[in-house]
């Protein structure tokens, strides 16, 4: 899969997006100049640790930033039109009908006192202007679509298992026929077998409806099985972007490589624990230069002073001084 930062076929383009959080008068950057493009029907994994900015990126795209967040630069374009991502009211027509979100905690996102069929029918009535009867019929169809027997529609959220609730969330996200679904750690709270079922469902829906999927997760192995492309984030920046096959076979950024090596992999046959030293940086005191340099085994002098830009390398992109062409390195030293 070729990444598609140029070309008119992109469905969504994120261009130099930066978001700051203000807390007690101190402003800290959550994401810094994030750029990528998403094509229709493409599944992209956004992988990072806590504080890497993966959730902020996704929430910015959906226009769901918290009140103390501020878009300090860049823009998001959907089918070529700039989205008013920092204006909640202006985003409303776009959200759910073009971009939907499936959240992690399905129990919190569902209203405990309403039957699930009603909760699925509601957005159909509000957004698509359906009558109650039409909306209920549509909700039934959606339930069947996500693999819930339609007679379970009269259940309340607490009567369903975690996996079933996550299916309801997916049905709600699909209600207004969006073209992009953002999954914010949609399977993190689920058991392994249920997780596999939900990931399979998302994959099926994607091919049937030509949905684009942005899967936010901390788990590289989930991405390995369910996405075409993966973007690795660290300390608010994308550090590597490429196809799943390429990144797992030949990671370019040292962080990506260490991350992949740290996943226990019986298939490799090697029982080795390979710790990455140090702690992930927090929002407030981020290292100068490349944010990963204090933990990086191949750090050079330049890494401590200069932020590496996210440059094209082969068919993907990587932000690392190790992979800059030799002229660039000379230029840096001069």
């Amino acid at each position, binding site marked *: 899969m070729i990444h598609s930062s140029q070309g008119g076929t992109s469905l969504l383009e994120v261009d130099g997006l930066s978001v700051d959080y203000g807390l007690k008068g101190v402003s800290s950057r959550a994401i810094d100049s994030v750029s990528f493009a998403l094509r229709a029907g493409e599944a992209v994994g956004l992988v990072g*640790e*806590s504080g890497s900015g993966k959730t902020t990126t996704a929430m910015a795209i959906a226009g769901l930033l918290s009140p103390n967040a501020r878009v300090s630069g860049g823009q998001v374009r959907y089918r070529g039109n700039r989205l008013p991502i920092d204006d909640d009211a202006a985003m409303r027509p776009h959200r759910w009908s073009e971009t939907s979100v499936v959240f992690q905690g399905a129990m919190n996102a569902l209203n405990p006192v309403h039957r699930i069929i009603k909760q699925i029918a509601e957005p159909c009535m509000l957004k698509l202007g359906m009558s109650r009867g039409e909306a209920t019929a549509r909700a039934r169809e959606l339930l069947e679509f996500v693999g819930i027997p339609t007679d379970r529609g009269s259940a309340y959220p607490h009567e369903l*298992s975690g*996996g*079933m609730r996550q299916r309801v969330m997916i049905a709600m996200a699909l209600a207004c026929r969006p073209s992009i679904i953002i999954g914010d750690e949609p399977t993190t709270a689920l*058991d*392994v*077998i*249920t*997780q*596999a*079922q939900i*990931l*399979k469902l998302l994959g099926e829906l994607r091919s049937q409806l030509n949905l684009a999927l942005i899967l936010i997760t*901390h*788990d*590289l*192995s*989930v991405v*390995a*099985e*369910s996405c075409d492309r993966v973007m690795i984030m660290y300390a608010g920046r994308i550090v590597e972007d490429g196809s799943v096959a390429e990144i*797992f076979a030949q990671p370019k950024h040292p962080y990506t490589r*260490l*991350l*992949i090596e*740290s*996943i*226990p*992999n*019986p*298939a*490799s046959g090697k*029982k080795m*624990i*390979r*710790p*990455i*030293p140090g*702690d*992930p940086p*927090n929002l407030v005191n981020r290292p100068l230069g490349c944010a990963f340099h204090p*933990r990086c085994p191949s750090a050079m002098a330049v890494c401590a002073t200069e932020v590496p830009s996210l440059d094209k390398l082969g068919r993907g992109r990587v932000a690392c001084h190790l992979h800059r062409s030799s002229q660039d390195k000379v230029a840096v030293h001069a």
Partner: protein
Amino acid sequence: MPDTADILRLESLQVHFPIQGGLFDRVLGRPAGAVRAVDGIDLNIGRGEIVALVGESGSGKTTVGRVITKLAQPTGGKLLFEGRDMTAERGSSALRPYRHRVQMIFQDAYQALNPRHTVFDIVAEPLRSLRLVKNNAQLTERVSEALAAAGLNPPDDFFARFPHELSGGQRQRVVIAGALAVRPELIVADEPVSMLDVSIRAQILQVLVDLRAKHSMALLFITHDLPLAWLIADRIAVLYLGKLVEIGTADEITFNPCHPYTVALRNATPQVGANAGRAELPALQGEVPSAARVPKGCRFHPRCPLAFDRCRQEEPPAIEVGPQHLSACWLAK
């Protein structure tokens, strides 16, 4: 298996939680049911051995850990520590010698640390309450030693800090230091890395593995993650709905699983890179039933793609399928 080598043995351990019936049921004398969280488990842990207990939520794996650390009282079966029956022991003073040798590490380090205590007080607590030190100098020495062993260096830098001033990885190290301070012989680790950032997990695993290497400490590693269990453990025990379905060496369970549930678990686990032999069984349908309504016969049969008549009637015993490898399935041989 030789008795003397085992530090801990569970013999048909059972934990049933009664379900409080409504007033109506009680008046009519209807029997209230029970949640069969743990329903007859036999397990042994050798000295210095790492055993992984793998299961989904609701499998009873956490309850097993709580029984071993005497946080939950079994309703049946036995808990033997070095051959001594500890099942009925209760009360903080009676359990002092046991607590000295069996400690626990928790999943959520943030929750496991009292927000109002400093790191020093947290790590010193077991030494004080188990009366293992004579004076303050000794106390400080033991706390420093434990913090250093858990990878918090230099230890004095952490003495006066509060849990909220630490990173997630450091908090888990403090929990580990607290368990290490008493120099136990068995540690129960309940999902010790599942709440941590991916890049931190290996650091914590390294600390645990080093402990075994240096002090030949035994470890019961409770997890839902089969590859992780393979990485750290000598043996793996797979739990389904309160019962062990399969137990064997880590390599046997990972590469040669016999029980259909273990196979399903392995197939469902997302993997980096090619995963050979994925399509042996169709993916499982449905979800784990409630432990209050355990199916008759083999408890896995309603979801098992290979189930036949006998599975619906009779519960299979643990059948030996290889050296140290047991599987509770009628198809095992």
